[in-house]
């Protein structure tokens, strides 16, 4: 019987005000990104998987080996788990050189000093840090420190790699480079990889699959495409920049919980509860009531305007509050400003409807 | 790290200051009463405390509102304090040599009065567990023996006595004063020690005394005198007079002192 490869976990614990109960699978070779607002329990989940916080309930198995299962009293201490952990602020040992930081794990796993240092040197070379082997952490840049931390976590050849906000400590400029590099290095690693972030772009670039966690619970998981087309929570919708509304199907219209109706093209059983998601780019704005195509038209007022590159996000207050995205020319043409009246039009075919 | 240290330092300082205050400043008035400051040898602690009480409450020679404050310690230590100008009215030392030094140093101007005599006695823990019978037992190797340090009168006296009797003693400790020696005997940490006869009484039930007849020859005489710069010279003289009065001698005898 072949053993299931990768991580299979249900982690339940309470820590202060956090009540965490999450089920999670990460296949060998898969990169999963854990997304969620601050305080959702992402870091706590990683710590629990690493054995730095004990489970109250549930089970952690890695490649079929049980690491933690309170019900059976099974517990493998952190130092005996084949897990690599890249901490948010790297936590490189300040008294050791980059080389000795990377060699640390190998030494702890019983490698002789000479061999450990040679292997560490190879890792640093692979990550383009050969010139910095003798440097102490405080002499390294953010990006270099991040790579040393990655090398240190990978050197003992873990079967699960945990990365906590690997890019958060970097400034915007280095972030882009490091993200691309990290993507390459993660691809070289064949174990399961779990990455915590609150940046959707990082998640989409680096991960095969996204898991959204809010208040200690998984609220949605799927590919980047799934989630960006069909977010299920306000947080998820904000993350992917979509309008999200909830309501009940009545024929071909959705009667929204917060008031108003939308005509939609999708077919769902009448009476079922649905989510409605609309791309801001699909929300059209007019100075006068439009005639013709759009089935959904109402009037509102501009609540806020925000520049996004060559586009502008327009929050429109009205019977159904929505966010529209228009070009900067359109803003001028329509005379948009805070408080200005505006007509909203959305085609039924531009509205994604899916079961709640 | 600074905070606990600061607390410790402050507490230590407070204790030190409290310790200093015990010395008492001569001429102070406590609640309107006149204060007499007496510097006396440590071996006089119990006897003088009682004398002080009687003196301040019932002695006809003193006015009713007198408070006697004592500073008990090794005679020579008290002398150092006196020579440095510590405020005191009366000085009572445990030997004449120290008193002579006080006179030579100008701390005492008047002629001192001898008021008591003390001889050495063997002190052993209650029950005398190691069966000490006389001076010669101090030479027993297996015993833990304490003496006063040679720098203080009781130590000088002990060495005189031992030399005279040709008893060779290798002490395990040389205590800075007779009280600390006695404490270690009381606690059973030392098997025997040479202390003043008066101290054996003060040790109460936990110490047993063994008279040493040979010590009669090398006793010490206690002199007392008003201090030259006393703030209360009259009161000081009255106190000295009370110490040598019948009442004073009776109290001293109760505490194991011999007449001078």
């Amino acid at each position, binding site marked *: 019987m072949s053993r299931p490869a990768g991580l299979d976990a249900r982690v339940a614990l309470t820590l202060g005000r956090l009540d965490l109960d999450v089920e999670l699978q990460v296949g060998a070779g898969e990169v999963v990104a854990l997304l969620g607002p601050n305080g959702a329990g992402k870091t706590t989940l990683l710590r629990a998987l690493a054995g730095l916080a004990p489970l109250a309930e549930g089970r952690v198995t890695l490649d079929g080996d049980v690491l933690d299962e309170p019900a059976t009293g099974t517990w493998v201490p952190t130092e005996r788990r084949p897990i690599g952990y890249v901490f948010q602020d790297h936590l490189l040992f*300040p008294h050791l050189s980059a080389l000795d930081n990377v060699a640390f794990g190998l030494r702890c796993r019983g490698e002789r000093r000479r061999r450990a240092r040679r292997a560490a040197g190879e890792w640093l070379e692979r990550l383009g840090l050969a010139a910095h082997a003798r440097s102490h952490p405080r002499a390294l840049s953010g990006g270099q420190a991040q790579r040393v931390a990655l090398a240190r976590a990978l050197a003992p050849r873990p079967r699960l790699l945990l990365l906590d906000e690997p890019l958060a400590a970097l400034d915007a400029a280095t972030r882009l480079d490091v993200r691309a590099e990290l993507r390459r290095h993660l691809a070289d690693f064949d174990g399961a990889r779990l990455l915590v972030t609150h940046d959707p772009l990082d998640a989409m670039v680096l991960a095969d699959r996204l898991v959204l966690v809010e208040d200690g619970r998984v609220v949605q998981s799927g590919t980047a495409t799934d989630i960006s087309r069909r977010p299920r929570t306000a947080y998820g919708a904000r993350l992917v920049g979509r309008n999200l509304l909830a309501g009940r199907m009545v024929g071909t219209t959705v009667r929204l919980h917060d008031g108003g109706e939308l005509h939609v093209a999708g077919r769902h059983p009448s009476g079922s509860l649905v989510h409605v998601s609309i791309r801001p780019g699909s929300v059209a704005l007019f100075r006068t009531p439009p005639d013709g195509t759009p089935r959904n038209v109402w009037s509102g007022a501009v609540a806020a305007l925000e520049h996004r590159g060559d586009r502008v996000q327009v929050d429109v207050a009205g019977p159904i509050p929505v966010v529209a995205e228009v070009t900067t020319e359109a803003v001028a043409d329509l005379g948009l400003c805070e408080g200005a009246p505006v007509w909203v039009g959305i085609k039924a075919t531009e509205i994604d409807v899916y079961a709640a | 790290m600074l905070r606990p240290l600061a607390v410790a330092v402050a507490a230590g300082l407070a204790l030190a200051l409290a310790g200093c205050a015990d010395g008492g400043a001569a001429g102070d008035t406590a609640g309107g009463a006149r204060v007499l400051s007496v510097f006396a040898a440590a071996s006089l602690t119990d006897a003088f405390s009682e004398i002080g009480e009687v003196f301040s409450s019932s002695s006809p020679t003193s006015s009713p509102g007198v408070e006697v404050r004592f500073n008990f310690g090794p005679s020579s230590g008290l002398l150092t304090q006196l020579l440095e100008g510590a405020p005191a009215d009366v000085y009572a030392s445990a030997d004449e040599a120290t008193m002579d030094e006080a006179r030579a140093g100008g701390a005492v101007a008047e002629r001192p009065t001898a008021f008591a005599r003390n001889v050495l006695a063997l002190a052993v823990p209650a029950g005398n567990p190691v069966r000490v019978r006389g001076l010669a037992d101090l030479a027993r190797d297996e015993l833990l023996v304490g003496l006063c340090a040679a720098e203080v009168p009781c130590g000088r006296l002990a060495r005189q006595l031992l030399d005279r009797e040709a008893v060779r003693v290798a002490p395990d400790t040389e205590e*800075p004063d007779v009280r600390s020696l006695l404490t*270690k005997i009381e606690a059973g940490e030392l098997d025997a020690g040479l202390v003043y006869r008066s101290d054996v009484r003060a040790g109460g039930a936990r110490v047993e005394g063994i008279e040493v007849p040979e010590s009669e020859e090398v006793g010490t005489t206690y002199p007392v005198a008003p201090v030259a710069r006393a703030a209360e010279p009259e009161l000081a003289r009255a106190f000295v007079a009370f110490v040598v009065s019948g009442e004073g001698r009776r109290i001293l005898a109760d505490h194991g002192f011999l007449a001078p």
Partner: protein
Amino acid sequence: MLVGLAGLAVAFVALPFVGLLQRAPWSGLPALLARPLVAEALGLSLSSALAATAISVVVGVPLAWVLARHDFPGRALVRALVTLPMVLPPVVGGAALLFALGRQGLVGRWLETQFGILLPFSTAGVVVAQTFVALPFLVVTVEAGLASGDPRYEDAAATLGASRWTAFRRVTLPLVAPSIVAGAVLCWARALGEFGATITFAGNLAGRTQTLPLAVFLALEDDRDAAIALSLVLVAVSLAVLVALRGRWFARL
């Protein structure tokens, strides 16, 4: 204003030393210091203080680690207990040691009957007394050093396969090394100056239990010049060590 107060503090601390220097019998000093008693007391002081510091480091660093890293019922009590000797009059500490470790003491009786170990009136007793009063200085300093460090370095070490002991040895210890050195220096200085607990617990015998402070105290009784000479030795040695180590280590705290 602040500088003025600071100056006042310096003057307050310096003044007694000026007094000491002014009274020093400079011409007779060589003869006084040449007495065997001085070398004996100094040697005993240096070696016993060093031994007390070594013991304090060996047991005090783990204790500081436990106090800083583990929350257990009664931790506040243990912490208070450990720092108690700092505020307790040393004589009280010495008496307490006598009641516990003396011949008639709780543990001392057992030590003597089982192993023939007699702590009072022995050099070992001096070390015990000094350790008792000096240990808190080390524990407090190291605990503060640990508390200001990031405990997650130990987590990081664990994820790399380090046992708790390895993490402590290879990560925690090097990170708090400056605190350990600072604590050891304070501890040593306190042990060197120890008087009350030593004389109460270990007694006073030249060559065996008479450390420099005891020698000073007794010399004050009958030979003030000798006392001052001994004090000068104590001051000189302490100052030399504190100046040498302070510049090097304390700056990093």
